[in-house]
Every structure is written in structure tokens, then in C-alpha cells.
């Protein structure tokens, strides 16, 4: 048996004087209370946005895609821009829960639940765009390899667009399973605490009858570890495959081998920014500042400055390669990106993604909550422009100057985009009200090593010599069981 001890150099992951029961109270409490005024306002606003989105999409399906601004030259406009943007945002959750689990990063426990939820909702939003972009959406099932009467016509398994169908549906399914398995013990907690019959019934069903036996937990840990191991290459594969949609074509500006790592870094960058946007609000509204600490925000800001710099290097590499290739098509594409009629989108991207995150090298700014919030939005605006730059400014001037065009979105396209915000936030508001936004069981797991009060209780161990420490390990557990955590 090991003694629970962690160095003082590490910041506590849970602030305040907490014990196991207090953790349950703090995180489950908001679910059992009536939501505040802000929740209703936000929720109703989200539903209105969602309804407007449904109206915009219905309009486009009824009248046809001619209602969108896309044309013969720019075939992918806001729809695919938004698709890539949302799917990129959907990368942070699984990165936090899977990759940080494999790297044994304790701080993930405070943020993984909300980040995974965000991932699932973002992938749901992303999925809308290719589906409705089909136009004749009633034929959408043609992308599936189903036996059929069309001369046994199968989808093209050699095409990146079909790889995308498999990648995104797999990603959604695996993320959902991973998330839900983690939720089972927390639903069981809500069920066992429930005072009302309806809550007991519903959370009883949702918890699948989880009771937390030793064997349950042993398998739960095994499942989480393997799912993390599977999700880690999966999360990298998804945006790699999204980048193949572009990189395997022969369009100047798309036809480049740097795309997979560049897209993955960008996805992590925007995903963490969105996690920060949501968590800064969630911790404030639900009073979870002691669980989602400044240390958590700082850790994510560090990842933002790292991935932002990788993205910056990728932009510069692209520019260099277009010159180094000496291919006139490549050179023209990049010249027009920087100085053509869409110059404003390129420079918005550069400012938001490359220049502004560099401010996070300053520790004071990394730990400043309002600044983090503003930066998280700036980064997501920048990443939206990155996708817009890649998609629109590579296609608006094609091989035939006679068909050069300028693309602007029409209201159904903008409405569609706003509608996905409605979908995203409707889901997030429901999640924040009815689901434990922090993984309770995981916080309890790290509480005695990383909780503020428990770390303080370890101070005397820190001052001991090795001989004393070893002696303590041998006798401590046999005789002094009832040691209360140090209070301050």
C-alpha cells in the first residue's frame, strides 16, 4: 500500500477545505436546485437561434442550394468552413480525456467532463454541414455502403470524402461511449441522493444500475484506459482525414503534405479555446471556481500558446513552400490570399491565431480570467477565418480567369451557422443543468493527493528525512487510521 503524497511544487487541483461529501454537494447541488434566471435567458435564446437555424435549412432544402451564395467557382463556402471549424472545436474534449489520461495529467479531472460534452455537441453541429450541403438530402444514405438496387453501386472507398463519413461517425460514437461510461458512477450518485421520485427513476435508468463494486471499478478503469488508447490515434486521425479532403486534391493552396499536422494543431488550438470560453462561464455561474481553478485555465492557455505557435509555423511554411515550389499556380494562390480581394480574411487569421496568442507567454495574462475569456473568443474567430481562407481563397480564382468570382454568403447560410450555435448551446445548457459538469468520482480519486487541505496535511512529511519517512510508511497505516485532514 502506498502513501498518498504529492510534491508542493504542484498547485492543488481542488482548492478549499473539501472532503468527499463536500465534493458531491458542490457538484451535484446545482442539479438538484432550480436553475437561475441567467440559465433560462440563455437557454431560451439558444432555442430561438436553433429554431432560426431550422428555418434557414428548411428554406435551403425547399428552394434548393441556389439560395446559398456558393457558385461554380466557390463550391464550398460557409458550410464547409463551418464544418471544419466545428469539427476542430470537437477535438479538445477527447484530447483532454484521452491523451491527458495516458500522460497521467491530473488536472484533466476538473475539466474533462465539460470538454467531452462540448466535443460531442460540436461534432453534432459539424455533421449538419456536409449533410445539408448534399442538397438532395433525402439521398444522403447513399454515402453508406448499403446493399442497393442501383446496379450494386457502392460508395468510393478510395475517396477522402467517404473516409470522412467513417472518421466522423466513429469519432462521435467513441466519444459518446467514453463520455457516458464516465457518467455512470456520477448518475448513480445523483440517484442515491435523490429526494424526488422522478429524479430517482430517471437517474436510476441513466445510471444503468451502477453500484460501484470493486469489480465494477476494476473493469471501468480497464475500459477507460483502452478507450483512451483507442481515442488518442482516433482524435489525430479525424482531423488528418478532414485535411485529406483538401490535401489529396490538386487545387493550389490545398495540395500540400503539411495539412495533416497543421490541421490537428489548429483543431487542438480552437478546441481548447472553446473549452476556455465555456469553462470560464460555467465555473462562474455554477460557483465551481474551487474545482476549475486558475491553474486549470493556465494549463489550457499554455496549450493554446503552443498550438498557436505550431499553427503560425505552418502558415509561414506554406508561404515558403509556395515560393520554393516555383509553381506559378501555388505562388499566385498565396499572393492573392495575402493581397487579393480577400486580404482582410488572411490578415484577420494571422492576427488572431499567430500574433495574439503570443501574449500568453506572460504568466500574469495566462492567469487572468477576463483576458483568458476574451482571448478564447479571439482564437476561435481566427480559426474560423483560417478555414475560410483555406476554402474560399483557394477556389475563388480557378484555372479559367473567365470564371473568377467573389463569394459572399446569403442569409440562409448565415442562419444555418447561427442555428448550429443554437444547437450547441441548447445542448450545453441542458447538460449544465441535468448532468454533473465535473467528473465527481475522478475528483474524489485525486482529492487526497491534490486537494488543497490534504496537501497541507502532508507538510510534516515534506520536512522529514528519508529514514523517518520510510518508518512512517511502515507504522502509519496500522495504527493511526483516524487522521483527519488538516483544517485551516
Amino acid at each position: 500500500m502506498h502513501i498518498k503524497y504529492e510534491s508542493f511544487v504542484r498547485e492543488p487541483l481542488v482548492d478549499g477545505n473539501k472532503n468527499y461529501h463536500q465534493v458531491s454537494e458542490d457538484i451535484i447541488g446545482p442539479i438538484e436546485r432550480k436553475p437561475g434566471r441567467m440559465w433560462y435567458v440563455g437557454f431560451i435564446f439558444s432555442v430561438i437561434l436553433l429554431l432560426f437555424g431550422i428555418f434557414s435549412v428548411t428554406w435551403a432544402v425547399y428552394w434548393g442550394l441556389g439560395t446559398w451564395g456558393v457558385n461554380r467557382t466557390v463550391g464550398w463556402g460557409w458550410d464547409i468552413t463551418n464544418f471544419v471549424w466545428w469539427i476542430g472545436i470537437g477535438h479538445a474534449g477527447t484530447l483532454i480525456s484521452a491523451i491527458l489520461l495516458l500522460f497521467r495529467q491530473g488536472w484533466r479531472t476538473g475539466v474533462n467532463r465539460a470538454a467531452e460534452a462540448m466535443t460531442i455537441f460540436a461534432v453534432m453541429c459539424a455533421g449538419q454541414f456536409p449533410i445539408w450541403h448534399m442538397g438532395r438530402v433525402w439521398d444522403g444514405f447513399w454515402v453508406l455502403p448499403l446493399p442497393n438496387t442501383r446496379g450494386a453501386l457502392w460508395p468510393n472507398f478510395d475517396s477522402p470524402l467517404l473516409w470522412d463519413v467513417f472518421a466522423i461517425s466513429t469519432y462521435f460514437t467513441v466519444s459518446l461511449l467514453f463520455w457516458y461510461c464516465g457518467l455512470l458512477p456520477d448518475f448513480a450518485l445523483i440517484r442515491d441522493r435523490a429526494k424526488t421520485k422522478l429524479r430517482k427513476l430517471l437517474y436510476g435508468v441513466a445510471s444503468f444500475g451502477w453500484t460501484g463494486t470493486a469489480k465494477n471499478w476494476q473493469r471501468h478503469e480497464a475500459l477507460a484506459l483502452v478507450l483512451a488508447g483507442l481515442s488518442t490515434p482516433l482524435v489525430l486521425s479525424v482531423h488528418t482525414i478532414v485535411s485529406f479532403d483538401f490535401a489529396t486534391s490538386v487545387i493550389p493552396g490545398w495540395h500540400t503534405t503539411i495539412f495533416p499536422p497543421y490541421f490537428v494543431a489548429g483543431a487542438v488550438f480552437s478546441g481548447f479555446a472553446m473549452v476556455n470560453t465555456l469553462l470560464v462561464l460555467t465555473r462562474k455561474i455554477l460557483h465551481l471556481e474551487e474545482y476549475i481553478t486558475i491553474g486549470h485555465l493556465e494549463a489550457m492557455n499554455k496549450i493554446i500558446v503552443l498550438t498557436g505557435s505550431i499553427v503560425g509555423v505552418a502558415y509561414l511554411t506554406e508561404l515558403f513552400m509556395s515560393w520554393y515550389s516555383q509553381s506559378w499556380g501555388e505562388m499566385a494562390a498565396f499572393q492573392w490570399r495575402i493581397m487579393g480581394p480577400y486580404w482582410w480574411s488572411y490578415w484577420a487569421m494571422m492576427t488572431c491565431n499567430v500574433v495574439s496568442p503570443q501574449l500568453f507567454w506572460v504568466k500574469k495574462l495566462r492567469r487572468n480570467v477576463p483576458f483568458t475569456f476574451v482571448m478564447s473568443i479571439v482564437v476561435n474567430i481566427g480559426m474560423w477565418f483560417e478555414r475560410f481562407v483555406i476554402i474560399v481563397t483557394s477556389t475563388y480564382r480557378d484555372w479559367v480567369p473567365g470564371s473568377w468570382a467573389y463569394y459572399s454568403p446569403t442569409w440562409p447560410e448565415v442562419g444555418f451557422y447561427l442555428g448550429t450555435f443554437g444547437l450547441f448551446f441548447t445542448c450545453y445548457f441542458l447538460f449544465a443543468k441535468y448532468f454533473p459538469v465535473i467528473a465527481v468520482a475522478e475528483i474524489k480519486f485525486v482529492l487526497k493527493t491534490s486537494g488543497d487541505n490534504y496537501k497541507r496535511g502532508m507538510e510534516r512529511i515534506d520536512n522529514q528525512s528519508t529514514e523517518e519517512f520510510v518508518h512512517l510508511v511502515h507504522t502509519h497505516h496500522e495504527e493511526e487510521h483516524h487522521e483527519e485532514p488538516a483544517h485551516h
Partner: protein
Amino acid sequence: MAIKKFAVAAYDDEEVLFPAVKKVRKSGYKIHDIYTPFAVHGLDEEMGLKGTDLHIAGFIYGLCGTSTAVGFISWIFTSDWPIIYGGKPHFALPAWIPITFELTVLFAAVGMTLTFCYLNQIMPGVKKHVFHPRQSDDLFVMAIELNNHTSEEEAIAFLKATGAKETSIQVAEASWWYGRWDKKEPYELQHAR
């Protein structure tokens, strides 16, 4: 369905639980199970439980996914309906790697999760006896199986001596059943103490 009698001890600290498990096993009592609010590392070993082979199942499901993808695509593209796409050969294995990978992960994840639910006997609608309402909150609850020959008083006294904070004797269904969580079972009302 098997209704049994249990002596139940609730501990409020995992550091007390571990020596208690050791003592209970040494004295010959049969541990039905231990319920904890979170994963307590080493508890399964302390109880003498074997490790889980769930990951091996996952590996096999993954292999099924790989062979499904490769088998299905190669049958379609070389035998059922061969078409040349983009100048690639009919058997274009490198182009199938992404889908093969995705199906491997999908089969492994879905198969493992279903196996996890089956082994743990959990499903929507499944109900199990909860020995202590705080076993998912802050208590570590050990249930010891009693038979007609074991003395209830002795068992309780023994559990108290191991440092249990609360103890009780409960008659309960040892397995799972289909039921509603908002309703009490007839046997629960019958045996209520």
C-alpha cells in the same frame, strides 16, 4: 434471484478500509462485495480478485473490425463491382487504411463497452440493492454474506472492531433484477428493520 442475509459495514476512509479487508479475509468471513464512490486502486488485489481480461476482448473486437473493413472493401472493389478510381489499382490497399483504422477503433470501442455492460450486469432498467445510500458519495461499504450458522451479533461486533463507522444487518437480493428505482421491492418492505 437469491435473497441473502448480509452484515454491512460502512467505512469513511479508504485507509481504514484496507486493513479491515485484510482482517475480514483472515477471519474467514465471505466478502460479498465492496462498494466505493470512486475507483480505489489496489482494492481488487486486497480482496483477492483476479485482474480483468476486458482489454483482450477489446483486441479481438478490434481485429474483427480490421478484417471486416479489409475483407468487405476488397470484395467490393476486386470482385463485386470493380471500378478504376483516379488511376488506382482495384486492390488499392493504402487508400483503405483510413477506413480500416476507423472500423478497427469502432468495433473495439463498441464491443468493449457492450462487454463491459454485460460483465457488470448493467443496463437501463436494471436494479440492484444499494446497501448504503452514501456508498456512491463518501462511504466505502463492505457487505459480508451471512448464513444460518453465523451469529449476527458476532459479525457486527467484529466489523465494528475493524473501524467501521456504521454497521447493519440487511436481507437483500444478491443479484440484479429489472425494476424501477423509485419503488421499493416487496421483500424490502417485508424485511424492513
